[in-house]
């Protein structure tokens, strides 16, 4: 039986004492920082801007659509931004929209009623500048409550990419530095997959893998002839269970709810930060959690030059608070951590704390998405129904570009996420033409025969892609908002052309009947994989943090989220965020114990 810990009310949080560390944020990075530091015996205060929502009750993963009054849709007075709105309009996107709440595009998916409390209201959280679909979750656990679960490792093809093609900067670490920490994350949280022995996509310590259906087995066989492969979705999901955490999490029971909701797992087989990291950290007795704490500044001790704590606003009452800590750990997400650093101005840090390099907010990168292919596996049409979607994901097709050969038109690479088989709602029901018995039969016979995949490509880390504080606009709490200066470059556009071509070519080679080839690049931000705004490096002039995510300028300031990543690679970042954070927090705790921070 799953339980949730009895976390004291925020009125009980002691804001007078000096904590060993204050951690800002509670997602993959904040949760991991709290878990590791508390395990080392440090007294930690976690600040989360949102409230705590019990997703065990909120998500209702197994509710049938017809059991919900609106078939899973949000109340009609709420609005979710569409691709068209993100493209045609400019931020702030909620301006002029009459709806009671305005949400990001994820809320246009089916089952949006279950995730409506997990995402911010764009009306309260505006931003300005160039087009960007910025998906934010201000709630305990952040976006890990609904993440896509694809858990991949980076390799030296990524960490040393600059040495390979001459573009950008190498990471200040190599694979052997982070490998033991990837292992620790695998064992602590559980990950599902199949060993493939790929140098450029290292294997994890996998639990029971998801299985392929017939179309996917067929595609795998066909791709092998091209020297490419699809592997079962490497899901950050415990499929065998994690023995050390049966209190808060269960193993996956293949209920198949993963892909018919905005995401989220109410039995917590899929990793989420609260049940995987925060509650276990709380059980050490060393963690204090202050929700509804909107952080606006890292406070500096002008005498020592060190961070002395955090200034925050109570999200509900608007009251100002300060809290003292010996170490400050920012884990508010790539863009929010950068925002907090830029907001933390002082006479010694006129451009924001830890920003002597001028790189905070810059080198902003992510993954470019959009191109892909949909097709029909004809052998499946009209055959007996099978159960195909009881799994946390379909397949992953790892990068094949710029490994040995050099592509003439672009550098770096991309991978595809895809899947096939019967889903709860037949996608062809709205695309099949006609009506009547013939239409009904066509939908029935084709449901389950579709196969599709879409690419995620590396967006080059470029200095000019950056966020800064907007000089005028403020959010509901009076905090200056971010202004985006972010565009895809020619490299991404060329890469996207190649994605569509190779996707089509691979399906054709497998004899899959092509229904459509997507060539459109989705609005910047669509991948929800933002990175790079406080990058690591050995040179303090060109980077914000050292290899332990420690500020070059302020020794007791750490930034442990995706902002530290030197390049985006093309792999989904969550597992790397957690492995890096664990490594840095081991270092932090060691230095703290020795009195060196």
């Amino acid at each position, binding site marked *: *039986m*799953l*339980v949730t810990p009895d976390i004291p009310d925020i009125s009980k949080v002691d804001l007078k004492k000096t904590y060993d560390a204050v951690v800002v944020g509670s997602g993959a990075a904040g949760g991991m920082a709290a878990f590791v530091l508390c395990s080392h015996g440090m007294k930690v205060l976690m600040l989360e801007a949102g409230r705590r929502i019990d997703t*065990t*009750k909120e998500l209702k993963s*197994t*509710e*049938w*659509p*017809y*059991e919900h009054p*609106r*078939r*899973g849709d949000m109340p*009609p007075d709420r609005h979710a931004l569409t691709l068209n709105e993100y493209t045609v309009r400019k931020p702030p996107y909620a301006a002029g929209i009459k*709806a009671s709440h305005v949400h990001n595009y994820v809320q246009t998916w089916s089952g949006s009623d279950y995730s409506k409390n997990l995402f911010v209201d764009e009306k309260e959280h505006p931003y300005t500048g160039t087009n960007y679909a910025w998906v934010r979750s201000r709630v305990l656990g952040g976006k890990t409550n609904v993440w896509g679960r694809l858990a991949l490792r980076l390799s030296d093809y990524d960490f040393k990419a600059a040495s390979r093609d001459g573009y950008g900067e190498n990471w200040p670490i190599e694979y052997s530095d982070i490998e033991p920490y990837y292992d620790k994350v695998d064992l602590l949280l559980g990950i599902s997959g*199949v060993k493939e022995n790929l140098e450029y996509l290292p294997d994890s310590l996998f639990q029971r*893998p*998801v*299985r*392929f*259906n*017939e179309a996917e*087995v067929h595609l*795998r*066989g066909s791709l092998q002839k091209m020297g490419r492969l699809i592997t*079962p979705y490497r899901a950050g999901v415990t*499929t065998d269970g994690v023995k050390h955490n049966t209190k808060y999490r*269960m193993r996956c*029971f*293949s*209920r*198949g*709810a993963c892909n018919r909701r905005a995401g989220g797992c109410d*039995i917590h087989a899929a990793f989420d930060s609260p049940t995987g990291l925060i509650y276990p950290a709380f059980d050490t007795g060393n963690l204090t959690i202050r929700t509804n704490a909107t952080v606006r500044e890292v406070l500096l001790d002008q005498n020592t030059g060190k961070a002395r704590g955090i200034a925050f606003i109570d999200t509900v009452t608007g009251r100002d608070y300060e809290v003292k800590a010996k170490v400050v750990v920012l884990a508010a997400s790539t863009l929010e951590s950068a925002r907090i650093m830029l907001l933390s101005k002082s006479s010694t840090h006129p451009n924001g704390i830890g920003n002597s390099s001028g790189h905070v907010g810059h080198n902003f990168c992510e993954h470019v998405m959009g191109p892909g292919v949909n097709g029909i596996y004809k052998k499946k049409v009209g055959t*007996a*129904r*099978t*159960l*195909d*979607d*009881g*799994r946390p994901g379909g397949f992953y097709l790892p990068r094949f570009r710029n490994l040995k050969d050099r592509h003439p038109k672009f550098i770096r690479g991309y991978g595809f996420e895809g899947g096939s088989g*019967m889903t*709860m*709602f*037949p996608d062809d*029901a*709205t695309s099949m*033409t*006609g*009506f*009547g*018995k013939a*239409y*009904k*039969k066509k*939908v*029935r016979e084709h*449901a389950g025969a579709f196969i599709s995949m879409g690419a995620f490509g590396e967006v080059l880390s470029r200095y000019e892609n950056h966020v800064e504080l907007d000089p005028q606009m403020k959010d509901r709490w009076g905090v200056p908002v971010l202004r985006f200066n972010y565009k895809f470059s020619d490299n991404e556009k060329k890469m996207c052309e190649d994605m569509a071509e190779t996707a089509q070519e691979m399906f054709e080679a497998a004899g899959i009947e092509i229904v459509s080839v997507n060539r459109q690049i989705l609005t910047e931000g669509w991948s929800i994989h933002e990175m790079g705004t406080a990058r690591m490096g050995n040179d303090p002039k060109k980077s914000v943090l050292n290899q332990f995510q420690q500020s070059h300028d302020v020794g007791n300031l750490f930034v442990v989220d995706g902002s530290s990543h030197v390049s985006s690679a093309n792999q989904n970042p969550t597992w790397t965020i957690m492995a890096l954070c664990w490594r840095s927090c081991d270092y932090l705790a060691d230095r703290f114990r020795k009195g060196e921070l």
Partner: protein
Amino acid sequence: MSHKHSDKDEPARIDRREMVKMTAGALIAGPQLNRKKNEPVPHKFFTNEEFVLLDELSEIIIPTDDQSKGARAAKCASYIDKTLAESPHPEDKQKWREGLSLIESISKEMFGRQFMKATAQERISLLERISAQEANPVKPEEKFFSMLKSSIAHAYYTSRIGLLDELEYKGNTYLREFAGEEISK
């Protein structure tokens, strides 16, 4: 009829008692134990005439056949009616009103009488006319057909009849193992 499948393809499901023992707590309120009969909702937005017309259109688009019952039995018109009654968007309501009245005027033009008084074959021929440009609708009645069909399809395939009887959807259940095939290396 529905739910026909061979036993050999059946993945190992976990029986309900075992599941409750394993999961307890919040999960007891899972789908198997919480399935309520949705009572039909009397229409709130459409007039009687509009509702009867929409109900008929829905059944023509997704009719009862040998596999399963159609959109009428799945109460698709009621679902659309309820959605519109709750909608804060007057322009959406307007589109439906205008669309249904367009059907009536086309019916009068084609057959000299109301849609519900036309023969079954005439009704189908009207829908054939307004769906001819389905891939690229231009005229108001063609655009209305797109909206009508996608709304009916959404309502039908999220209904119990559409999901379980028509599509024989087999997921949303607790399994011991993932269904599917081992990959060959």
